[in-house]
């Protein structure tokens, strides 16, 4: 198992946003987490990526307990993520955004930048090359020099993914990578996720767009009110009574965000 959570819980005050979730992701898989609004999907990502400390439970990555590790260490170990509200570095170009994404794999420090020594040059080159590579991969080469403020929403989503890829991850967590974009663009992102898998990456995505999920995921976990209510192949989940009930029972599961 690449990632597994054991009995993972996160409560905010009295609210159990994530409630005793056992979940595992195999290397090379594309898996999805679905569930109505407010069911704890994003919180699950936040706990796995270290932004929130779990209230209980453990997280293992490549067999190693990372429950207490700080956010940046998890990324160093190979867990990258994007945010639901696409977060980029403003006042910077697409290329600049992605260059920072590879900083974690470099060691340039104060002395190196003062003297502009071999390591400095090597690292600057490494970051630039990696950035150009992932931009190409994400289909963004022609936007590299544009400020991130004035590129379309779909491109912004791709930049967020490109930044995650620049960290040289093993596992990429995508929080609603297709929210707020149209049908054709969604197909484009679907394509990109597939390409990531072909490159040997493992992907876990949260998505409300069912067609995309059913099309991509080999394995799906369904959350409702913080609890895992079902898990399995797309067919199994789609035919699961509890799942159907959960979706019909909540009246605000619209695909609006």
């Amino acid at each position, binding site marked *: 198992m690449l990632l597994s959570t054991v009995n993972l819980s996160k409560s905010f005050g009295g609210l159990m946003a994530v409630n005793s979730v056992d979940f595992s992701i195999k290397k090379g898989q594309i898996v999805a987490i679905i569930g109505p609004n407010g069911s704890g999907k994003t919180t699950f990502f936040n706990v796995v990526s270290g932004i929130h400390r779990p209230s209980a439970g453990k997280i293992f990555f490549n067999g190693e307990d990372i429950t207490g590790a700080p956010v*940046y260490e998890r990324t*160093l170990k190979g867990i990258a993520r994007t945010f639901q509200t696409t977060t980029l570095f403003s006042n910077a170009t697409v290329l600049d955004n992605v*260059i920072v994404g590879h900083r974690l794999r470099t060691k340039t420090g104060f002395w190196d930048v003062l003297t502009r020594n071999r390591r400095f040059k090597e690292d600057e080159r490494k970051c630039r090359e990696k950035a150009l590579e992932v931009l190409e991969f994400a289909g963004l080469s022609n936007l590299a020099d544009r400020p991130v403020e004035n590129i379309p929403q779909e491109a912004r989503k791709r930049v967020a993914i490109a930044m995650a890829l620049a960290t040289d991850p093993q596992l990429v967590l995508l929080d609603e990578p297709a929210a707020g974009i149209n049908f054709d663009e969604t197909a484009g992102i679907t394509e990109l996720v597939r390409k990531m898998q072909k490159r040997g990456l493992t992907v876990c995505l949260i998505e409300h767009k069912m067609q995309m999920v059913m099309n991509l995921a080999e394995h799906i976990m369904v959350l409702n009110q913080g609890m895992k209510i079902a898990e399995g192949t797309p067919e199994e989940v789609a035919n699961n009574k509890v799942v159907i009930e959960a979706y019909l029972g909540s009246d605000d599961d619209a695909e609006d965000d």
Partner: protein
Amino acid sequence: MALFTRKNCPALALVILSLILPLVITNKYFMHVIIMGYIWAIAVYGLNIILGYTGQTALGHAGFMGIGAYTAGLLNLKLGLSFWPAMVLACLFTAFLGWLAGIVSLRTRGHYFSIFTLCVGVIIHVVITRWDDLTGGMNGLIGISGPPPAGPVSFDSLQAQYYLVLFFLLATIFVAGRVVNSLVGRTLTAIKTSEELTEVLGINTMKNKIFAFVLATFFAGLAGALYAGYIKFLGPQMCSVSMTFDMLLYLFVGGNGTIAGPLIGSLVLSTITESLQVVQEYRTVIFGPILIVLIIFFPRGLYGGYEILRDRIRRRLPAREAPEGAKEEVC
């Protein structure tokens, strides 16, 4: 290295200008004003690193400059150390205190960090004011020795002092420039823009913020030591909280987060303040509105305004065509 690239030309011209300045200016008082402007600029470069580039509004800066000044002064007066070792130790000691203050204060964010560092500044000022036995309290320290001759070069004349301070100013700008235009600088700017995203990209933001804070206080310490060696008298008012706000003013007027901003702001404002007595008395009344106007129209200060103008002039034609091109992309 190509020295005369298009990008370097203005900078080089300015360096040459600053080198021949003492030959042109004969007015001693004006020389003094410029030397002081340079010293403030060194400190403001520090503030620019932590605030302008890293986005952490540190408000204890004058306190750290005071630490540098008093350390240099006391090492000279009490231990008889000459200026040079005293200056080196003052910088290191200030940076060490900066590190201590940093590891504690940088655990807080936003307003809390500002308030915390403001308190640090106040405490330093109070300690310097009250610790009579050590710092001379309100009477201050008198009779600090200036830099002894370095080989054949003596630092007695005003011109020599000017070149000394200029040397350290250029060194400061050099260091700041190298840091800013590198992966290290990119990392700091990333933290300024979104600390959470930076952390998620696998960067230890705490470590980087501490680095920026230490570098910032190092520059403050250097400015303080130079101040002590130049003025040769220290009073607690040189590190009062209002001095931090003066430095903030210099930074914002010159251009927060720009490489030339600290120098421009320090020179322009300290010249105005020093040359017009009226301004000195009513400076808050006069500078307040100026600052507000500047921040509204030139959020990146005078230098930021200059950059916008320059870019506009440089690509006047492409700029006119841009909207059409942009539209095509969006559709």
